[in-house]
């Protein structure tokens, strides 16, 4: 993917090696301002590793990451107040209530008038009745909503979402997506999303970056990819790429079949 002048996230030749395993092998991509980009790939493709490096909690072996014009390897604390994330790999303190958790993170992110902001988010994400309950007593779906509230506390300019609607029922999942879309429309937030839900990707994402074994194997808009692979859905495109069916062969096979 070539350099894009309005890129909010710019990744260049990023590599990460764990002992003998090279999890990310020199990936380069940009995420344009105000768009949603999906980072897709099978298990072990390098999605979470890449997101972790973007957040600064994992140091790359080599390469460069720029977020909002800041070098994440040197100046990440300048940009972290303008970012946020959710991930199923982290949790919130279970014995604290939802309100206490949100209050702590509001202070960490320097949110002005935290009580008001927590009230707004609670109303928007249907958390009002949960505010006094310990986080550990919530269902998986409720926890996901609280995590999203935490991620939106500081009204981030860049939001990294790792499986944001995992464990949500279709109704709540749909409302969460609508909420994120609405937030992006109003705020101009740039989102990078790792997901295994292909209908979510088709609905929300402007661009898709396909990873396999730590390398970028393809990219484009969902429509472009569906067309390029001669498929009907992103689910089918995902399967083709994850199983290593490359684009020309797939197109050739389809041509022959028809």
């Amino acid at each position: 993917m070539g350099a894009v002048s309005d890129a909010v996230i710019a990744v260049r030749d990023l590599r990460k090696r764990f002992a003998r395993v090279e999890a990310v092998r020199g990936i380069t991509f940009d995420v344009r301002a105000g768009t949603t980009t999906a980072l897709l790939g099978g298990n072990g493709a390098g999605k979470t590793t890449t997101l972790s490096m973007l957040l600064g909690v994992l140091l790359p072996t080599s390469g460069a990451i720029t977020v909002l014009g800041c070098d994440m390897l040197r100046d990440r604390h300048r940009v972290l107040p303008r970012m946020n994330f959710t991930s199923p790999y982290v949790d919130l303190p279970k014995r604290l209530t939802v309100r206490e958790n949100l209050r702590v993170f509001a202070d960490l992110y320097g949110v002005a008038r935290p009580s008001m902001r927590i009230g707004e988010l609670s109303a928007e994400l249907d958390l009002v009745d949960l505010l006094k309950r310990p986080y550990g007593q919530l269902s998986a779906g409720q926890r996901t909503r609280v995590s999203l509230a935490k991620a939106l506390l500081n009204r981030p300019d860049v939001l990294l979402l790792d499986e944001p609607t995992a464990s949500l029922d279709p109704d709540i999942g749909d409302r969460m997506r609508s909420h994120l879309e609405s937030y992006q429309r109003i705020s101009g937030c740039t989102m990078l999303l790792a997901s295994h839900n292909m209908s979510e990707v088709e609905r929300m994402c402007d661009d898709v970056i396909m990873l396999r074994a730590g390398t970028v194997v393809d990219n484009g808009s969902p429509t472009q990819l569906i067309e390029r692979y001669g498929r009907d859905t992103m689910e089918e495109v995902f399967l083709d790429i994850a199983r290593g069916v490359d684009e020309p062969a797939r197109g050739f096979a389809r041509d022959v079949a028809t």
Partner: protein
Amino acid sequence: MTAEIPGEVPRVVDRQRGLVPSLRRIRALIRRHAYLLLKSWPRIVSMAYYPTVTMVLWAFVTLYLAPTNRFLADAPGFFIGAVLLWDVLFRGQLGVSLTFTEEMYSRNLGNLFVSPLRLYELIAGQLTMSLMRTLIGVGGACGFAFLLFHYSIFSMGLPLVAFFACLLAFGWAVGLAVSAMILRYGLGAEELAWAAIFLVAPVSGVYYPIAVLPSALRAVSYALPTAHVFEGMRALLLEQTFRYDLFRNAVLLDVVYIALGVALFAAAVHSARKRGTLLQMGE
């Protein structure tokens, strides 16, 4: 759930650099642990439980031995004072280690490390929580010592503040080193949080003078601030003298150990960032 967000999105984040934002982030960490602590009376009681029971035990030993022992007759508060000061060290270390372990159990480290919180602010939050835990734990035991045995550790006067500060600082240094070990080796190393400080107990001269130790161990003792503090305590109780030389040695050694503790902890965080364990640490 309301999908649409009404109105514009104003910027809600305050200025992030400088002393005030830094203090606010430290306060957030303290708030997080204070929420946990203050809503659980068993936690608060358990902090004072161990030092109180140990103090009561040594107080009865003193009552038993004092009539036939000139040393204890001269300094009846010797063992109680030693127990209480030892507990400052233990609580100080435990306060730092347990505050950090709590974040690991909660799988909250990832959230903290992607927030604007800086490493020195995390450390400052841990140290403040350690001070609070120590004051609760040792304060409770001091109260019981006065109620049950009419012994006030405050009879040591201002030197008590000096001893307290020196022991707390060394507890912090060990606590940071233990936190580094737990971060490096996972919660399997949690036992260190409870046991690490006892390694220095035999050479700290808590209940006996350093002079009784073999000469090789004496060298080890004098490399620890604790030995200077407890020697200083004995000088105060038996000779009514505050030994500035011992106090100075303890302070200098504390500076060295605190620097080592911070360096070890920072190295462990750096290593965790290289290995990618910050997002995965937990039970």
